């Protein structure tokens, strides 16, 4: 198909708009409401064109090309119309600076800064020239506005975290409304009121915090004016440099553009080229990167304990001190905690250091808590192997989605975008959750399940399937008979009463699952973090086999997959995460090397404690030496994201203060201890060795790593799959008179190393504070508790503090709290250790009581 634009013959495909085609061919058409990520809107009318033999001036953003179309984009008449339209837009947007005759001089000297009223001038706009409206004014050469200017005098909305909303600058292009609705599925803002009063707003003009906003920042990024302005960069100058790297704050591995000014991070934005995130991010990647790297809690000098005090030391002194002391111990008396947030190279190096130099097998990290680790363990215990050969993008192609144990728009916002794509394409979403979630708006079926009864729900669904399948001559998968027998033995007579789900709902769920050939099951911590989490996953596994669904364990830390692959290479005979901390307090350990997030040590019965971290934390008071590690932004390496995508992250700034990358610290230590194997001068040398040693990396070449972005699959062929017989037991915690509440523990991913993000960022704290104790309105009323009140939660094994957060959707008798390793001792759920850590690495559900703090 051919069209002619401005006399140029152009070969085009169908179903494309004139604007898209023109842009591709470098033909500039001014536009303000159109955006590549959004559906055409036709609101601003600046992109009007003339089409031969068609009347009027259709907007090119919403007019599709037709064969033989002759289009003109720059006739004098068009320009005149555009100018008039733009003048109308400007009549409601502060424009004095835009058309001021002294503009050129002023740009340089800001000489006329006070000649215009503050609200009318660009010089005082927080966007500081990053303005599409300014660009269009320049291209259309507007030098006067013939219409009287109207200042709407709307109150600037400053009550929400991270960004201000000044609708006096809004040109009603609707980009924010559309991105929130179409791409993010939140619909927190909408056009409200009518005619000249029309404005972008929320329900009842409530703050965004109360209108379903997830603070992903997508609206800020698409806003063509200074209406939506990030507060953090308000008074900052324009960046002088822009770097690209990978976000380390969850397992998605979103590509971010980092704005820099004199080696300081100003802010971060999602990269349009990001293979995983495609121009989208979440609250953490968009607004918190700067806070993490430049946190006042960073440690920037090595510390060594001299005469009972931690004192600053040089690297030479600190490394010599640690090396000498470490040399005295060997083997089982030493343990090392690594971090699932460091690079593959660094994790590998920590293991190498432990096995070659410390001669210990006691190495572990908090990756044990992830659904992936629980899944892995369960599968291995049953003599099977994990099949993680999936891509996040597969989710958008599923026809039926079953989501259990996670509120993904909050916990995995980028995976949610894929789910949303699937649902908008007609897929049916089934949600099993105890509380009502915002995403229920998109669900075909919500199974409001009583917490902790997931196993029965899944087993019952399996049974329903079995009955339906008996007629069908299905190819028999191994283990079917014993699975069937185990199902028959389960007493499911009380399933409706136990789960709180009706027979009709269960029937509907099974029918929805049966209808489809392409189902995806997404499961998170809510399923795995139970004393019987492993059985829950087994039940889901069987159901997935029956329905031929793909299982997606929802990842946690950025490098979880990398860590899990590296861990396969090492013996798991040593102490695990929980055992290490038990041994540290019982005195069975002599030396603990903390290079990753750890629970707060109540007492340290140790002879030597080294902490290698980027942030100060309470364990410092037991530390004999502290080695300041740099953050992800100050070094380079590779992460493997939740779908097995190998990603290279880049050094963005030089290490702050005297902080050094983890790989450098370990290399130096090992050398000082006499190991010649640690000759690495940069991370890529470690990569080369790692590829040789870790079996699952063996099919990757170094050039792949350099390029990054290669899907990493364990093996191309599908693993042999087999049913797992279900075991049944009812050994779980029960409420009692003394402990009338059951407390849920969310594993909080709002941390980086030992920094709690919600304690660091006031914005995140307003959205979700890791110190919130969530309670139902009924219970709060009964106990006469008010929002924000300080309370103490007590179990049979300990207590911790928190603040009341009343959550409408929470059922009675249930409390919710965040489990965060990087939390201060008073507020840390790890105060309930040991019962928090079940033998299966689960956080479990604990019977607790609460009282008001005195």
């Amino acid at each position, binding site marked *: 198909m051919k069209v002619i634009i401005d006399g140029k013959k152009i070969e085009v495909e169908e179903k494309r708009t004139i604007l898209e085609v023109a842009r591709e061919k470098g033909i500039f058409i001014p536009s303000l409401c159109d955006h590549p990520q959004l559906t055409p809107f036709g609101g601003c009318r600046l992109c009007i064109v003339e089409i031969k033999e068609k009347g009027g001036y259709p907007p090119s953003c919403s007019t599709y090309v037709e064969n033989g179309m002759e289009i003109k984009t720059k006739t004098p008449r068009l320009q005149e119309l555009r100018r008039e339209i733009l003048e109308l837009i400007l009549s409601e947007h502060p424009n004095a600076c835009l058309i001021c005759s002294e503009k050129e001089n002023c740009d340089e000297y800001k000489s006329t800064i006070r000649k215009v009223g503050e609200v009318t001038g660009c010089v005082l706009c927080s966007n500081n020239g990053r303005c599409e409206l300014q660009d269009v004014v320049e291209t259309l050469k507007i030098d006067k506005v013939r219409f009287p200017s109207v200042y709407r005098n709307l109150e600037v909305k400053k009550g929400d975290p991270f960004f201000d909303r000044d609708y006096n600058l809004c040109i009603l292009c609707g980009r924010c409304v559309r991105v929130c*609705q179409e791409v993010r599925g939140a*619909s927190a803002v*909408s056009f*409200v009121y*009518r005619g000249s009063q029309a404005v972008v707003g929320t*329900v*009842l003009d409530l703050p965004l915090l109360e*209108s379903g906003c997830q603070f992903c920042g997508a609206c800020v990024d698409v806003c063509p004016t200074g209406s939506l302005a990030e507060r953090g960069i308000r008074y900052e100058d324009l960046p002088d440099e822009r770097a690209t790297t990978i976000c380390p704050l969850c397992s998605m591995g979103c590509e971010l553009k980092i704005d820099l000014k004199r080696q300081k991070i100003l802010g971060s934005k999602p990269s349009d080229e990001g293979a995983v995130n495609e121009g989208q991010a979440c609250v953490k990647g968009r607004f918190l990167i700067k806070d993490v790297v430049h946190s006042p809690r960073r440690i920037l000098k090595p510390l060594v304990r001299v005469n009972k005090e931690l004192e600053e030391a040089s690297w030479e002194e600190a490394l010599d001190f640690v090396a000498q002391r470490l040399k005295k111990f060997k083997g089982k008396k030493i343990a090392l905690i690594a971090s699932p947030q460091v690079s593959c190279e660094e994790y590998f190096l920590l293991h190498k250091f432990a096995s070659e130099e410390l001669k210990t097998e006691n190495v572990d990290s908090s990756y044990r808590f992830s659904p992936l680790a629980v899944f892995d363990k369960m599968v291995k215990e049953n003599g099977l192997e994990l099949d993680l050969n999936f891509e996040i993008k597969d989710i958008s192609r599923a026809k039926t989605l079953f989501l259990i144990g996670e509120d993904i728009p909050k916990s995995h916002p980028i995976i949610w975008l894929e789910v949303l794509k699937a649902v908008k394409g007609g897929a049916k979403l089934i949600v099993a959750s105890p509380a009502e979630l915002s995403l229920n708006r998109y669900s075909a079926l919500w199974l409001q399940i009583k917490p902790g009864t997931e196993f029965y729900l899944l087993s019952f669904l399996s049974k329903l399937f079995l009955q339906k399948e008996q007629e069908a001559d299905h190819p028999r998968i191994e283990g079917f008979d014993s699975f069937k027998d185990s199902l028959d033995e389960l007493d499911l007579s009380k399933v409706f009463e136990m789960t709180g789900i009706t027979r009709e709902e269960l029937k509907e769920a099974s029918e929805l699952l049966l209808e489809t050939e392409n189902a995806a099951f997404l499961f998170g911590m809510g399923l795995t973090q139970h004393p019987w989490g492993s059985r829950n996953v087994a039940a889901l596994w069987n159901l997935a086999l029956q329905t031929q669904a793909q299982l997606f364990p929802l990842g946690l830390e950025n490098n979880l997959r990398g860590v899990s692959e590296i861990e396969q290479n090492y013996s798991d005979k040593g102490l695990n995460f929980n055992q290490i901390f038990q041994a540290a307090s019982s005195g069975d350990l002599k030396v603990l090397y903390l290079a990753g997030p750890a629970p707060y040590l109540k007492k340290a019965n140790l002879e030597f404690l080294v902490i290698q971290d980027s942030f100060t934390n309470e364990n410092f008071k037991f530390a004999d030496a502290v080695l300041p590690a740099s953050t992800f932004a100050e070094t380079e390496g590779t992460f493997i994201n939740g779908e097995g995508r190998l990603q290279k992250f880049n050094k963005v700034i030089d290490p702050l203060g005297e902080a050094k990358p983890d790989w450098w610290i370990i290399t130096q230590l090992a050398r000082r201890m006499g190991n010649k194997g640690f000759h690495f001068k940069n991370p890529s040398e470690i990569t080369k060795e790692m590829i040789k040693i870790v079996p699952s990396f063996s099919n990757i070449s170094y050039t792949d790593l350099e390029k990054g972005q290669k899907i990493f699959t364990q093996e191309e062929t599908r693993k042999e799959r087999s049913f797992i017989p279900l075991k049944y037991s009812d050994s779980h915690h029960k409420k009692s008179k003394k402990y009338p509440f059951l407390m849920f523990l969310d594993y909080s991913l709002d941390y980086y190393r030992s920094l709690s993000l919600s304690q660091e960022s006031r914005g995140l704290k307003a959205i979700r504070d890791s110190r919130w104790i969530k309670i139902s309105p009924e219970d709060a009323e009964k106990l006469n508790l008010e929002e924000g009140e300080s309370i103490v939660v007590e179990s049979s094994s300990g207590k911790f503090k928190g603040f009341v957060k009343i959550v409408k959707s929470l059922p009675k008798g249930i409390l919710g709290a965040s489990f965060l390793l990087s939390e201060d001792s008073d507020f840390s759920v790890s105060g309930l250790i040991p019962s928090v850590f079940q033998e299966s690495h689960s956080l479990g559900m604990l019977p607790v009581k609460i009282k008001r703090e005195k």
Partner: protein
Amino acid sequence: MSESNKDQRELIHMLHDTQEKFGYIPAHSISQISRELKISESEIFGVLTFYKAFALKPRGKHLITICMGTACHVRGAPMIIDEFERKLGIEAGETTEDNLFTLETVNCVGACALGPIAIADGDYHGQMKTREVDEIIKKLKEGKNKDIE
């Protein structure tokens, strides 16, 4: 169009029903409709603030509506409004403190020949004169609206 979208077209009907039942759209109804129709609360708010038929605040016991269409306007509707505002002590769009009267304007009720028009509790008063305002208010108070000529 998917099944859920079909339901979403019920939004206006549901808002009408709510308006009729409560005399306005209370906040809890927005949440309820949102849950039922699977439309976000902000989007519902966008729709309900678009139409003048829906109110966000409870209206007074008596509703007085003044037509501000072009025909009524040129025939002196602004003066009628002024008079009502003065007599009731409120501005157009507001409700009196005793919750007895709400004064509103609309942009044409389609009876231009009779302009200027005031509608008091559903009864049309054509060719209004400022001196009739007092009587309308009085009769409304007494509950004898229909008797006004």
